């Protein structure tokens, strides 16, 4: 009897130990191959897009959904190691420098006057940039970095942040005050790298409506402002230094090119003609009567195309300041005086409308203009009152986009679009050439985001588009991606790596990543 019980016990033990096992287990790395590359130590270098920036801030949840972090999770199926990120201190995203806020919290969609609108989430930010993190970080994405910043000594020195000489994000995790981003990346002995840089070399300019300078021909980047376009030769030089340095350390890598800024909702959401009869109401006759005088003067001066008129039946373009057209302030003032207007008013009109015109379909209004159009510009009111204009009249002349032309930073004019497009194309040629020369994987982010904008990308739960807030690809700042957008990029990077290195890394399901606008109060 005892014997039988013993056998039964042995049998029972054998069955307990019998966990279900797959024929080919994903978990035990029996399914995928790393091909010719090694993903043991992956280091990602770049700007905000690499850091996981979204909703106008860097915050923990965004970082966890950064494309490099998504990639690293998939790399784990082919021998990839741990992936560390310089996580922010909270999910608010604001930065402190010596206790004072230097950047705002992330945007969330919340109800403002009953309408959903992107607004900074409430709460006091806790990320103090002078609290430097210890250790090295696989994600070397530094929001705001331009191509030449990655090899700029002192870019992570907190002492230079206030003066704009250093980057607050890099100050948080650099290994020493004078080290460069590339040096810190290489010190980790990466086996694989990604480099997505150059976006800010054009985006800074475009996002500011072309208010900066196209520095083509200026070979000294230390003289560039944050909203300038980088010289192509400067870009070529620093980019090849960076790729050389990374490729010398890592056996494999992937380069991404620069999307057209015009693929993003930041430039496509606010229409050039948001001024409807509903919005302007009974002001239209008064406005048209006032502009009627100006239009006669424009016709007299041979520029009838600058005529400004508000339709009583359809949408009308906003009034913009176009720095690319001839400044007719003086002539306009004289003409108006000749037409019988008092000199003071004529001088103000002349100055205000000397380079004004109504926007048309070729002008891109930037996203930030939406909260400005139709509001009274208090600075302008003060300016006019200082010049002796009565308050009521000053107010009437200071309605942004209606009576006061939208300033340069709110409009990307066709000539500025041209500058951006030319520089983007030149940078992209350099990036693709570098990838070919080094045998690195290459991802055409430019055409991919173009596809998102034009045809959309299907996934298991629908289609992602570049529609602001609801499209699923772009976060509430209109430039940076949602987790779903980053997951889409991660898949494209994986596909390119698989093709270049004969690996079989699996894609992620982008439907598992949030594409909805962040909501909160």
């Amino acid at each position: 009897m005892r014997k039988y019980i013993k056998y039964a016990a042995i049998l029972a033990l054998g069955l307990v130990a019998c966990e279900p096992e797959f024929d080919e287990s994903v978990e035990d790395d029996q399914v995928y191959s790393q091909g010719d590359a090694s993903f043991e130590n992956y280091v990602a270098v770049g700007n905000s897009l690499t850091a996981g920036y979204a909703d106008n801030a860097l915050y923990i949840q965004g970082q966890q959904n950064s494309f490099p972090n998504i990639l690293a999770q998939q790399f784990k199926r082919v021998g990839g190691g741990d992936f560390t990120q310089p996580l922010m201190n909270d999910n608010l995203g604001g930065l402190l420098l010596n206790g004072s806020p230097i950047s705002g919290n992330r945007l969330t969609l919340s109800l403002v006057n009953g309408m959903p609108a992107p607004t900074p989430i409430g709460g006091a930010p806790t990320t103090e940039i002078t609290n430097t993190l210890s250790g090295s970080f696989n994600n070397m994405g530094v929001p705001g970095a331009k191509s030449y910043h990655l090899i700029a000594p002192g870019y992570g020195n907190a002492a230079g942040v206030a003066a704009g000489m250093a980057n607050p994000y890099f100050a948080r995790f650099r290994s020493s005050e004078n080290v460069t981003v590339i040096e810190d990346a290489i010190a980790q002995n990466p086996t694989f790298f990604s480099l997505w840089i150059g976006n800010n070399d054009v985006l800074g300019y475009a996002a500011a409506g072309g208010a900066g300078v196209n520095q083509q021909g200026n070979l000294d980047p230390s003289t560039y402002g944050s909203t300038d376009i980088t010289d192509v030769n400067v870009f070529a030089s620093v980019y090849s230094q960076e790729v050389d340095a990374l490729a010398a350390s890592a056996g494999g890598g992937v380069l991404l090119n620069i999307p057209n800024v015009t693929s993003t909702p930041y430039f496509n959401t606010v229409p050039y003609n948001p001024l409807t009869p509903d919005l302007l109401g009974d002001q239209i006759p008064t406005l048209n009567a006032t502009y009627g005088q100006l239009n006669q003067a424009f016709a007299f001066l041979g520029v009838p195309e600058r005529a400004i008129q508000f339709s009583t039946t359809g949408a009308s373009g906003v009034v913009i300041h176009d720095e690319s057209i001839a400044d007719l302030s003086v002539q306009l003032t004289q003409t108006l005086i000749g037409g019988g207007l008092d000199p003071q008013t004529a001088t103000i009109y002349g100055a205000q409308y000397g380079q004004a015109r109504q926007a048309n379909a070729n002008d891109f209004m930037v996203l930030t203009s939406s909260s400005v159009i139709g509001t009274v510009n208090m600075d302008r009111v003060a300016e006019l009152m200082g010049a002796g204009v009565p308050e009521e009249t000053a107010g009437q002349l200071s309605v942004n986009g209606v009576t006061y032309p939208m300033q340069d930073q709110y409009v990307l004019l066709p000539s500025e679009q041209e500058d951006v497009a030319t520089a983007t194309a030149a940078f992209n040629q350099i990036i693709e050439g570098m990838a070919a020369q080094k045998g690195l994987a290459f991802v055409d982010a430019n055409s991919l985001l173009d596809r998102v904008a034009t045809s959309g990308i299907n996934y298991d739960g629908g289609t992602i588009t570049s529609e602001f807030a609801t499209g699923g690809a772009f976060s509430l700042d209109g430039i940076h991606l949602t987790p779903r957008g980053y997951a889409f990029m991660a898949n494209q990077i994986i596909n390119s790596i698989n093709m270049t290195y004969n690996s079989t890394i699996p894609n992620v399901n982008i439907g598992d990543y949030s594409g909805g606008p962040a909501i909160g109060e």
Partner: protein
Amino acid sequence: MIMKKLLFFAVFLLAASVTYAGGYRISAQGQRALAMGHTGVAVVNSAELAFFNPAGLVYLENDLNISAGVTGVMSNVKWQNSNTGQFSETDNPIGTPFYFYASYRVTDFLSVGLSAYSPFGSVVEYPTDWAGSHLVNIIDLQAIYIQPLISIKISDYFSIGGGPIFATGGVNFNRNVNRTLTDEQGNRSNVEVDASNITNWGWSASWMFNPTENLRIGFNYRSEIILEAEDGEAVFSNVPDSALSPIQNGTVGFDASLPMPAEMSVGLSYEFCDKWLFAFDYNRAYWEAYKDLNIDFAPDDVPDSSNPRNYKNASTYRFGLQYEALDQLTLRAGYYLDESPVREGYFAPETPRNDSQGFTGGLSYQISKRFALDVSVTYLRFKEVDASYDYYMEDGTNVPFGGTYKSNAFLGGLGVTFNL
């Protein structure tokens, strides 16, 4: 000679397969029956008949018969998706279905009985926020049937039996609200529904026919019982604190119903070579009753949860063998083939059951004249299966959740039989 027979028995045992069952049905209603592949509709052996065929109670030798036991169910489910490299496995607590059966002979032709057992239940626990967490994180459902019984001998050849069933049950179900919604800190928005002490009534009826001394034929039918949860509690948590959220944090009421399907069993047993008994049972579970799992949240502005299940009726084929090895020792083994009620495209991770094979074995040891110890072990094997649930809806689009599943279960049961 005995050794040779034991060897034969062991081979049968190894060749045989497991006893858990399709859907959320539990096949662990008696250690003696379970050891024989959960056959019993035509086996007159112990008070376990109260479950398998009340009509047979009247043929038991003793006046008072009691059988009671509990089974430990260890089930494991692994899931992986080779398109994405995702994988997960359940960490299920040990389930403990139990039974208590008693019968008493009132007169030669009439026995009465009482039974309490847990015929339905399921505990599936995935890691929170796993890839399928929008379908289920944890489900724990259980139903207990309590049944007064009557067994009437029409003749030595034929008897009938049955009685009303009082069913009581509860369910706890936790899943994430959808695939992507989180609160401001990135915690996945979650809903947990809980309903307990749901009750309803049903019945069972059976007959037994003994055409020869060695052959018995049995039939049993247990009715469908629908457990309707009214005014259960659903708790939403980790929802972003915003008027734009589709739902708000807090507790709301809900109504839902879950069917415990009807089951018909028919089978035979045959005694041979003095000490051997062979049994065969055929079960038909009427799972078509399980069309969908709809959770109707009480507030109108909380979207109801519709989860089509569309189960089909399913059969189970059971084979058992018993050998009285010694005076005090009876050995048993069995095998069964259990068809899954889940249709293609409806394979939800909350009841990840494809067709399975059960391999069972066990023994009874007569400790004293009145007491016997009953032991059973069961190994339930599911084939590796590529399957998906295609009816999860997101913004009006069906979003399939699929992958490869591999499951098994191990049951170890202990029971006692008392005769007077």
